[in-house]
């Protein structure tokens, strides 16, 4: 598709999204509580949080569909309160609940967005066809949308959101309610758009999805950002600067854990199925302790590997929530 590098002197250097001290109140509920973050050009930024955390609320404020109660939102340096029009030309939104026109065909839906955003008339049809082909909907482009499945509608929604070649794409829970195959296709598509230069802002409550897709993740709980970093850094933070090594002995005896735990350089030993997870400060120290223990106790090491905490473990540590809260599904879209 080829995204033109676009104009706008100072806007080019400003972050794609800059949010400072944003709060949103619904009556007595503080849905978003003094949130501050920036999204840099070219990154895939994920807002990860359980149901009701405030993800959709933040996206709505960022896209001008809702107004902040306090704080400031800039999209490509344009203040969303004062100058939303210029900002709106630069982004696209795939909403949480698909809101396309059931009365129109897939092609008409995509064309309509091209018309609204002023895509040159001679390019509209080509671009719409190209996108629908890309999403595997070429043969169905003239079918009314009411006949489409949820996954197909989501694909049309993405086509409609990028037909004006936005520099920034907001996706609110793009894979929620999709089956594994459609979800995978969709993630591939998001990566591809990103490779073509589109900055991506997405929300999700799937930990693996955030881990695989995002360059940086903000953990959102009850309207507040409790951590914001790369997935790797979040995992490192969860391991509190230490390391973990997974080991299996033959024979594996109960006293293995106790014996290892007493050695210097070892912080903690926990059983993980038929293996032990040994935590310490440095990999070399932990491995040395394991090898020494094996030699002294006359047991054989059958497996040894360093392990990193998963994002799920990081999430549990950083939020103090059970990872179960992220697994509750909502009614579909």
């Amino acid at each position, binding site marked *: 598709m080829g995204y033109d590098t676009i104009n706008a002197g100072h806007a080019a250097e400003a972050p794609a999204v800059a949010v400072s001290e944003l709060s949103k109140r619904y009556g007595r509920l503080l849905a978003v509580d003094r949130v501050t973050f920036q999204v840099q050009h070219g990154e895939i930024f994920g807002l990860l949080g359980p149901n009701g955390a405030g993800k959709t609320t933040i996206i709505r404020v960022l896209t001008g569909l809702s107004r902040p109660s306090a704080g400031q939102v800039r999209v490509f340096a344009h203040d969303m309160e004062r100058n939303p029009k210029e900002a709106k030309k630069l982004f696209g939104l795939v909403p949480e609940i698909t809101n396309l*026109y059931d009365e129109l065909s897939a092609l008409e839906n995509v064309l*309509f967005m091209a018309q609204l955003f*002023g895509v040159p008339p001679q390019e509209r049809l080509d671009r719409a066809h190209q996108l629908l082909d890309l999403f595997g909907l070429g043969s169905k482009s003239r079918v009314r949308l009411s006949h489409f499945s949820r996954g197909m509608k989501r694909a049309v929604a993405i086509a409609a959101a990028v037909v004006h070649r936005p520099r920034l794409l907001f996706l609110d829970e793009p894979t929620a309610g999709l089956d594994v195959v459609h979800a995978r296709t969709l993630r591939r598509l998001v990566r591809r758009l990103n490779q073509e230069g589109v900055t991506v802002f997405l929300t999700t409550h799937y930990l693996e999805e955030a881990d695989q897709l995002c360059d940086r993740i903000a953990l959102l709980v009850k309207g507040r950002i409790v951590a914001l970093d790369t997935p790797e850094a979040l995992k490192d933070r969860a391991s509190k600067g230490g390391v973990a090594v997974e080991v299996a002995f033959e024979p594996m005896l109960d006293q293995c854990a106790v014996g290892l735990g007493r050695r210097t350089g070892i912080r903690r030993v926990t059983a993980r199925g038929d293996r032990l997870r040994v935590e310490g400060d440095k990999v070399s120290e932990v491995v040395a302790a394991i090898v020494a223990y094996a030699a002294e106790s006359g047991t054989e090491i059958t497996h040894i590997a360093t392990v990193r905490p998963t994002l799920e473990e990081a999430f549990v540590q950083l939020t103090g929530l059970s990872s179960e809260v992220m697994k509750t599904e909502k009614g579909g879209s």
Partner: protein
Amino acid sequence: MRDELRIIYYIIRKDMRAYYLKPPAISWGILFPAAMSLSFYLRNPAGFGELAPGLLALTVLFSTTAMEAVVINFELRVGSLERLLLAPATFGSVLLGKLLGASLFGFIITALVATAVLPTCLDRGFDVVALLFIVITSLITFSSLGALISVAVKEVFEAQTLGNFLRFPMMFLCGVFIPIQTLPPGLRHLAYALPLTYTVDGFRQALGGTGNLSLVGDVLILTGFACVFVVPAVALLRRRFA
């Protein structure tokens, strides 16, 4: 400005394509005024000329307000109105697109009813320019009223119900069937506070009859009503997305 005009134009086109044949638009916007006209014609073909201005006014009233409920409330419910708000235009432009779309629908329906009705009152002669003036201002005014009703509620049926609370009293008070002069004074004053009165009055003059006000007066007052409806409608729409 160019953005706004383009967006208004494509909203109108899309609404025509997507909604002109929706059931609520057909029942209240087409069938109701057509059935009213037909039944009054069948009852008394000779005296029909007297009722023609009122029936045309009713057609304008019902077709525009019914269509406004469809183009706004369908989209409020499905959330597709948000697509329009993502476009680089103001709330006012989006509402103007909705309003002109309903006016165009009203124009088509009114033109159809008029081609059926006008031959019956040819003997009185009519003024095409005056007719166009009164039709167009009335279409805009009642589309604005419809828009105000529609943004105040969420569902299509709520808009039609709330609409009927206003439409039916206007039908009986504004000189459609009963001349305003024959109303008791209290009701007569109420009639002058309702926009349909001026549409009926304007139609009467355009169709070779005599009115209570000058045609220009009717048009100006209707324009005033349009402003009174549009301003709060935009404000209410904006508040929905506050």
